[in-house]
């Protein structure tokens, strides 16, 4: 057993950390305040190759594996949740679907510019009636010669407002439902019939685009079917597993930053003649959260290692769900603790704890609510004992 990062991953972390501290952190407050997408940051990330961190080099990626991708997300999550979310939606679910199930021609045409950061991806699954209940989607795709005609729409699509390429899930056979009736498509945002209907105004991750997309007679060539017709649900679930792991990594970064802030203030702020660090209530809280963060770190990188060594069976789905669920909750607890230690300062708009607090909440919801993650985890556990859980 070896728990050390390889020299290449250590070098990658140095690069990413420096980039995060110099290029991302200084913008974090402003993009939140002004509700701006950090396009320039995304461009620079692409230039260095980080937007293709885990994709093969033959398709323009860096080839640093899932471990490399987790390092990227952890370091971005440490300084700016919005930027981490933009990147996560692009790499982790949008482009990931093409990486996992695209054919060589699709990868050459779509994954390559995405990995190089020349184009940005989004992942189109959620609908107003189908979020956690992903099988209940209503967007329809009807075959017409060499094309499919898509009608319907998606909501809460991260990067949706500006993505060039969206991987969209649509019903191709209503009779079959999720098992065989849903197909994944690669859609270009420039095609006629693709519309961005609105941008959500959100509590947190305000430096991201969360858009409602509308498809009206959107013609998609058959060659843009991702994977096999009718197997879209499998494609999307596999992508989401990857996304859940790396969301856990981003939460790890956020939790780590909160711990660092809490420690800083505990050693700075004096009350009743001593620094807060001398209060046992503070010490215990810090000790607890530091332990949780270490546990999360071990979990995230162990699961990343499993992916990099090809161990992506049923156990992976369960562990990825744990990364997402536990990660988002540890991050929320860490930030809540930091805010409590900062006291009144923590809730003022002048200070980044308040932003971190708003940013953290969504992680317990998107990419599958934590309730869904618990179902995934529990159903895997019970399956081992022969019990099939009904949703």
């Amino acid at each position: 057993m070896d728990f050390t990062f390889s020299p290449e991953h250590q070098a990658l972390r140095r690069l990413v950390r420096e980039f995060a501290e110099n290029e991302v952190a200084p913008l974090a407050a402003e993009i939140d305040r002004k509700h701006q997408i950090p396009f320039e940051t995304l461009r620079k990330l692409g230039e260095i190759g980080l937007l293709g961190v885990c994709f093969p080099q033959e398709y323009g990626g860096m080839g640093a594996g899932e471990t490399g991708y987790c390092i990227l997300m952890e370091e971005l999550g440490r300084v700016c949740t919005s930027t981490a979310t933009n990147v996560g939606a692009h790499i982790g679910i949008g482009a990931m679907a093409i990486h996992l199930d695209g054919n060589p021609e699709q990868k050459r045409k779509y994954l390559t510019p995405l990995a190089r950061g020349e184009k940005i991806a989004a992942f189109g699954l959620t609908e107003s009636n189908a979020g956690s209940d992903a099988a209940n989607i209503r967007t329809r795709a009807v075959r017409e010669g060499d094309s499919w005609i898509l009608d319907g729409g998606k909501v809460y699509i991260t990067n949706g407002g500006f993505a060039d390429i969206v991987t969209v899930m649509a019903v191709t056979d209503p009779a079959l439902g999720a098992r065989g009736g849903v197909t994944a498509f690669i859609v270009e945002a420039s095609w006629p019939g693709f519309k961005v209907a609105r941008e959500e105004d959100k509590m947190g991750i305000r430096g991201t685009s969360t858009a409602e997309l509308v498809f009206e007679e959107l013609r998609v060539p058959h060659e843009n079917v991702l994977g096999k017709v009718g197997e879209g649900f499998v494609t999307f679930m596999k992508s989401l597993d990857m996304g859940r792991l790396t969301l856990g990594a981003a939460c790890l970064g956020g939790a780590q930053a909160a711990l660092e802030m809490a420690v800083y203030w505990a050693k700075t702020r004096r009350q009743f003649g001593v620094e807060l660090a001398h209060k046992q209530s503070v010490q215990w809280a810090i000790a607890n959260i530091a332990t949780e963060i270490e546990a999360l770190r071990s979990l995230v990188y162990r699961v990343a290692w499993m992916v990099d060594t090809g161990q992506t069976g049923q156990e992976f789905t369960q562990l990825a769900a744990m990364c997402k669920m536990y990660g988002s909750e540890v991050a929320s607890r860490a930030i809540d603790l930091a805010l409590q230690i900062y006291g009144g300062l923590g809730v003022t708009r002048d200070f980044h704890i308040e932003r971190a607090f708003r940013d953290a909440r969504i992680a317990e919801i998107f990419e599958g609510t934590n309730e869904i993650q618990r179902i995934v985890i529990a159903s895997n556990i019970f399956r081992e004992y022969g019990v099939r859980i009904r949703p």
Partner: protein
Amino acid sequence: MDASFLDLLMAQQEEVTEAEGGGGIWVVADVVNGAVAPVTLEAIGAARNLAGSLGAYVYAVLLGDGVSGLAPTLYQAGADGVRVADDPSLATFAVEPYLEVLSDLFQAEQPEVIIFGATPQGQALAPRIAQRMGGGLLEHVVAMTLDEATRTVQASVPIYGGEYYEIMACPQARPQVLAVEPGAFPAPFMDPYRKGEPKSVEVKPAEPRVRVLGPAEEFTPPAVPLSQAPVVVAAGRQAGDFSLVEQLAARLGGRVAGDRGARDAGWISPEQIVDIRGVTVAPQVYVAVGIRGDTFHNAAVENAHFILAIHPDPTAPIFQVADLCIEADPKEVLPALIAALEQ
């Protein structure tokens, strides 16, 4: 006793005579605006301390145009011998002419220790001399001790700008070349009775290899953010006259900033607020003018290396974090401080 008699007596006693046979501790003088730079005098003082233990003489070397008149200063500071290279070709510093003079002199004299000031001139010359003569060099030396058994100088070199010191030595290499940090060693007692006869050094012409083309008018150095500025002068509610704060900053070559009170007064922009909710700074020098100093401000200056605080209230918390405190109305102190800095 008659003072003039004392003068006579001391003058006779302190007439410096030089020893033969090379070795010795040599100090290369920096001349700034026609005067010996303080660092040179400090170096001579430090050399004298070493000389006592080593049983060696201290020599100083003057280079320049019309610098012969400065030799008495070097004797007074403690030099036993002075060499002067006085030549129009040495009027402005350039590596090659200076280096040729020093190189010939040191090849002939074979010093045991050579001390430069850690100045631009010393930075340029010391490594050249050390490399040419096979010597060791330690730069930015702030303290020296002697390992008497091996006649080795042990020098303290600041690490990370003075967070701590590494004690280093070059026990095998000779000469031992040192560049001493200005202000690190005490100025020596200037003994008016120490006198000597400087010897002049032959100056062979050497062409400078670096050509100065002229002012780089279009060049502006990269902007340094306030968080990395080396000198910050910040105003608070009690600053009184903000234009004095700006004058002080200009005098110190520092950046103007302030606390939230200064922002409320309209003196500074939001980007200039020093506060953990604004900019956290870590300058070499931070001057807090009329800043009371709440936790949010004081935590943001925690990494400043030196803090001077001026505030009328003796109980102001800023005084707990400041190195140097002036309990007074800034309006009264600032004009005097600006004037004192101009001297």
